[in-house]
């Protein structure tokens, strides 16, 4: 059951890059447009989208590692949108990040002990004699042996490095973790281990997770709710199983049916063409250039994200598409 208390509330977040400097000012590329969502206490939200959808940007913007141009971010009821870097510092302990690439996410010049101690030092946690037991506890939490403390990152496999990255994030006892494609760089046989670990940590510590991935089947398993993102806009939000089994938005349906599965050949929506550049997004609905159901009206207004069933929303003007027979 989803908790009622909203730990994170994101409201109409917009973010763009570039725009050039000096003489040659150009149109900024809008990566996110009017993105609103919430994450409940202890909830895992899956954020799915393809390259260019802005899913990683959302993760960094929520942590204020990127500055959003517009919109509000409230963490635990406190508006953090306009906090300076200095004022954010104590809050950083509450919200952490896990990265995709297990090779660049750990400082190659530090041992595991150094990496984890750094995190604790910054917030002056578990100092003195309390340090060693805490380090061991952290490794234990992610399923690594205590002998690993004095090894360097290059001595570990990708899956083990990812566990160290998770231990670093958990070391400061955060209440929110942004997991940015945490398993996509791992081999299939290792992926499941890390997914299980994240789910277990949520159960044990009650941490909320923003789980970013391009892989719908992974997100379906781990998330309570799923947000489907396309070209910086939310297309659909809903409970994980429902979005996966009975998507409401044509793009969600296309994503589901593009998923490589052992038992394919059910109804399929095949998209054609490429994701448009964020520099020149289509007018109206951003998905209309690839949408098999697009109408002339889709080019006109930007469709609102509206609730169509309890807990389910979509940003599509059409309610008359029967997804099952459509393909």
């Amino acid at each position, binding site marked *: 059951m989803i908790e009622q208390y909203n730990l994170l509330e994101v409201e109409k977040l917009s973010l763009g890059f570039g725009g050039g400097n000096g003489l040659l000012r150009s149109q900024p590329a809008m990566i996110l447009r009017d993105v609103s969502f919430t994450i409940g206490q202890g909830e895992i939200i899956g954020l799915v989208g393809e*390259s260019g959808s802005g899913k990683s940007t959302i993760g*960094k913007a929520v942590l204020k590692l990127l500055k959003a141009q517009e919109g509000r971010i409230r963490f635990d009821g406190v508006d953090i949108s306009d906090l300076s870097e200095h004022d954010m510092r104590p809050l*950083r302990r509450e919200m952490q990040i896990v990265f995709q690439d297990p090779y660049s996410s750990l400082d190659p010049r530090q041992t595991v002990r150094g990496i984890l101690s750094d995190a604790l030092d*910054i917030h002056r946690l578990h100092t003195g004699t309390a340090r060693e037991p805490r380090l061991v506890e952290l490794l234990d939490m992610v399923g690594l042996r205590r002998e690993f403390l004095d090894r360097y990152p290059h001595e570990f496999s990708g899956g083990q490095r990812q566990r160290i990255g998770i231990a670093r994030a958990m070391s400061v006892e955060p209440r929110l973790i942004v997991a940015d494609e945490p398993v996509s760089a791992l081999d299939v046989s290792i992926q*499941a281990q890390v*997914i299980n670990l994240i789910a277990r940590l949520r159960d044990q510590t009650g941490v909320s997770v923003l789980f970013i991935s391009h892989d719908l089947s992974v997100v379906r398993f781990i998330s309570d709710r799923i947000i489907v993102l396309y070209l910086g806009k939310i297309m659909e939000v809903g409970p994980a199983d429902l979005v996966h089994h009975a998507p409401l938005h044509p793009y969600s349906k296309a994503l589901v049916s*593009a998923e490589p599965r052992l038992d394919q050949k059910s109804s399929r929506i095949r998209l054609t063409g490429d994701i448009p550049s964020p520099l020149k997004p289509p007018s109206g609905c951003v998905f209309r250039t690839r949408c098999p159901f697009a109408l002339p009206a889709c080019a006109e207004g930007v469709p609102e994200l509206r609730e169509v069933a309890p807990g389910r929303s979509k940003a599509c003007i059409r309610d008359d598409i029967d997804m099952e027979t459509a393909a």
Partner: protein
Amino acid sequence: MTITSASANPSSAFRFPLPRIHPRLRLPLAIVAIVLVAPFAVPPLLGIDPNAMSVLERFAGPSLAHPLGLDEFGRDRLARVLIGAQASLRVAVISALISCTIGSLIGLFGAYFRGLAGFLSTKTADVVLCFPPILLALLVVTLMGPGTTTLIWVLSIIYFPAFARIVYLEASRVSQLDYVVAAKALGARPRRVMFRTMLPNISGPIIVQLSLTAAAAIVTESGLSYLGLGVVPPDPSWGQMIRGARAYMERDPLGIIIPCVAISLTIYSVNLLTDRLRDVLDPKGLSGGIPILSPRRPKVQAAPQSATLEADTVLRIDHLDVATNTNGTPIKLIEDVNLRVRRGRCTALVGESGSGKSLTASSVMGLLPRGVNVTAGDIMLRSHNGETIQVTTLSGEDLEAIRGRDAAMIFQEPMTALNPVYRVGDQLIEAAKIHRSVSSAQAREEGIEFLKRVGVNDPVRRFDSFPHMLSGGLRQRVMIAMALSMQPGLLLADEPTTALDVTVQAEIIDLLIALKNSAGAPGILFISHDLGVVAQLADEIAVMYAGRVVEQGPAATVLGNARHPYTRALLQSMPAAHEELHASRSDTLPSIGGTPPLPHERPAGCAFRDRCPHAVSVCAEVRPDLTSVDGPDHLAACHLTRGSAV
């Protein structure tokens, strides 16, 4: 930690990283140390005044009292050359350190804070770099007058921009890396991020630049002194000694040669250290990273019995072994692989990273990385005129003839597989123009036709585009068009959809399925880690683990009735296979514990046994062979499949 456990665990020896000196650095470091210390240590031992003149003995040759003889004023040359070194080294080392400190700070701050700080730090460097170094030095000398202090300032100004630029670039690169972002996300203050996280990770290039600068400073100092604008007489310096000796060059060549040799040896030793440092810090430049091209492969003696391929087969691999021999001991990367690809059918090779699946494809093309070789087995390929070719016996030139025409290949990264400086169309028809000598106009027409066939919209415009103008999906279509352009009998596809988005991946898979069903379709060897993708394309599947095929057979059988525990585990660990499970109900996904063994750590017996839930004692002793299970086409390499099912 006790001593015994420390010695039992070799990696704990690295616990406190004392500056262990790399073997390749020892000699140059020792030489540089001597060069640095000798000028200060030796003169007191000699006890000779470098400025004491003995006019009667001017130009005296080497003797016991004066090993290098006396100069034009009868001064001891050895003493002078050593004292001269003091001035040169002092100026060089001090100015290198000053410029390093200033430049590094500017670069680091610029890269961390970006914005105005970044702009100013790069532009300051750019402005100073507009002046050729010696000219800048001369400008300052004009205004401040010659002398040692001036020199140190001059050299610091000349050399700090290079540091600022290098540190700025390196720090900018590092600041994008996740571990730096992680430090910021943890709430580390800028000072901590810059000096504790970023600086240690860019220390390599800074040290290289420092030693480069020290050498350059010696050169510039001596040059200015040579012009009479550096160290002022009577203090001896090398440049000045050469200047002084010039007038007596004919009479006394030794006088000029001694300081010349001293300067050159000093710089040579510092340069040697720099070069070695670079090699050690960036091993890529030394040996690795030079794949494929070079040296020409000699012709191998043809195998005695030249087997022929079955009529419907375009590729057969028999008992293939591939090994690398980098450190003297050969390490097998692939062992005893048998595969067959039929015309118009798709054989999939499935495995995780390091399983050897890509190497198998590369050996078919004769494109193995340098140092990796086929050590046993046969690769038989159908040529375009129907003959059977033994690929392993071909020379370099014969391989060129079959590549593209009999076997074509597409790769994982469409972003880097095309050369950015040529239009895609030109790359598409490049090989056809050389192999078939068709006219440019005709090749262009054919190329556009192929683009159309692989579903490229607006093929005429795309033909004239540069690769960076196309999306990943389009580039992969171009790669496929390129591969098909010479109508090969075999298409090797090495993870062709892995780098693509799922919706684009689905399009490419559809394209490959359509290709397979078209008339005159090539046989496809499809390499992938993704069983879901493979399920849609493959007619036959071979699963590789740790360099060996552990299970193979018809696709439906392998996927539907997998017999090897590894294949089963792979299928089970796909989240898509468990739609009934959900994390919120405290379900866990079935997973395989542990990681695949590295090639040099593969255990005896079955390589999967350490991760296998069913392993029994025989698995550790005897390596299971591929034997048929269920039917003659379905093979598995597991002791447990014999007799009873797992």
